[in-house]
């Protein structure tokens, strides 16, 4: 490519997610990528680096601040517009669904910017998926611990085998149309109360 590399600024308080996007952009051959986690210095950063594209997470409370900077010609030398093209509604929807927003210097060609936005969208989605999977794994681990404890209580107080204790928990959960972990939690709470301990 004979054209100069596009300068990309990523604004995200979530450092992990910012790193995931940065990696993606670098892998795609973009060498001029800068990250900002803290908004306090962002005006200077924009003035110094003159980014062509700014990527910011949708949840960031400072989006209104950023947009107002673009309206003030004093703050930025070049006009910046949102997204690639107002007419490209599919891209815009995909970005907002993914939780990312982008601002682009006016007059930049769509074919140069769209791959960057697409990359940001796919990385944001990948990050959300990863975070969801982590959360699911954590919940799964927690519910296994609860069931183990509840089984122990039943085995001790009612003299059941481990298998019988599990079967009882499972049957109760099915009858009450609740999750087995919820039944286990109720049992642990009730046992705590009956023992007169302080533990809820």
């Amino acid at each position: 490519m004979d054209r100069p590399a596009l300068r990309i600024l990523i604004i995200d308080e979530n450092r992990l997610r910012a790193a995931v996007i940065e990696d993606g952009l670098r892998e795609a051959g973009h060498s001029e990528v800068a990250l900002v986690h803290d908004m306090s210095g962002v005006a200077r950063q924009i003035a110094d680096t003159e980014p062509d594209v700014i990527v910011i997470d949708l949840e960031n409370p400072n989006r209104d601040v950023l947009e107002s900077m673009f309206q003030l010609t004093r703050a930025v030398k070049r006009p910046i517009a949102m997204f690639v093209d107002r007419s490209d509604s599919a891209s815009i929807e995909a970005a907002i669904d993914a939780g990312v927003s982008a601002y682009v210097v006016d007059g930049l060609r769509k074919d140069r910017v769209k791959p960057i936005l697409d990359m940001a969208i796919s990385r944001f989605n990948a990050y959300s998926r990863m975070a969801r999977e982590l959360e699911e794994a954590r919940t799964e681990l927690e519910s296994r611990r609860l069931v183990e404890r509840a089984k122990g209580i039943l085995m001790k107080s009612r003299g059941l085998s481990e298998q019988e204790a599990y079967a009882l928990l499972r049957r109760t959960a099915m009858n009450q149309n609740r999750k087995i972990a919820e039944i286990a939690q109720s049992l642990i709470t009730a046992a705590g109360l009956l023992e007169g301990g302080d533990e809820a």
Partner: protein
Amino acid sequence: MSAAHRVTAGFLPLLDSALLVAAREKRFAEAEGIDLVLVRENSWASIRDRLAVGHFEAAHMLAPMPIAFNLGLAPLAARTIAPMALGLGGNAVTVADELWREMADYGARPDLDPASGGRALDGIVSRRAAEGGAPLRFAVVHPHSGHNYELRYWLAASDIDPDRDIEIVIVPPPLMPDALAAGRIDGYCVGEPWNTAAAFNGAGRIATTKSRIWRSSPEKVLGVSADWAESSPVALDGLLRALYRAAQWCGDAANHEELAGILAQPGYVGCPAEWLMPALSGRIRTGNGPVVEVSDFFMPHARAATFPWKSHALWFYTQMVRWGQVEPGPDRETVARETYRPDLYRRALRSLGVALPGANAKVEGALTTQTPVGSAGASLVLGPDGFFDGKIFDPDRVADYLRS
């Protein structure tokens, strides 16, 4: 009743999200067959974007925002209408303690009086300029906000040029008290509870209130996607009736403790309930100063507080022109006027038999006392609605007002 229509609405953590929150929590929406899903957002930009792509049908919005959208002043905005307002007043101007002490030396009265406070600021601004000091820096939440326009109106009427004599920056509402405490700004204009927050934590002094700069003045509206409003009139009417009931409930002093408790929850405003009570009760704790009675600080219901006056829309348009956000023009004036939709408000509420204004617009600033007015249904009392400098805005003479 099972909900026939699901409506998803975005809001920001502010006191005047109260009508939407009460419509859900007190089941006024459910009673109208509306499953009202509320989504808390962190910026007005996200409210705009998510309305534009159809994640939201409606949203808590700064009253000038839908006008700015329809005038093409915001990126990516969908055609948006305002069929209802979400109350009157609710803002204040808070300054750093140090600046307040200086203002007091220059004659600012401690009772939230805007005229003496404005004169004092003017004196401080002139002295600073003469001494070659840095200009004062004030923050508002958005360029297209009642906060920006009322702050500028107050300053300009006090002989301060808001573009030349001071600096105005944008800061998100919940971050205002911290920005003030850290000395990044000298003052700000924001909705509650973010003035009271600074008064409670000792960093700021409430200098004046929106209701003292312009009584009974517009602040937030229900912004609705125009496409959705056209395709779902039944759901829209139900939503407006639910919000009207919610406004009645929020306006009843007997419910203020409960309302503060609900809004204090982490999913809504997420702050101590005691921060929400001053605005609801009208007993404003100014900070390092007296408690001042401002009975009309925030009006969720009385004085036709939810009626979307076209004169409010047109006043916002005049301020956009005044501060160089838009070039004046008859077509633009029409866009502003048509953004507010009292016709839809009346259509939805007619069946309730409640007091509805007979007119779509009124002369702003003309009522010096509470005044019974012609209305459909029960009796209706409007005003007082005066500007602190005594000026009057006649919506039929927009061009004259712009020249003045």
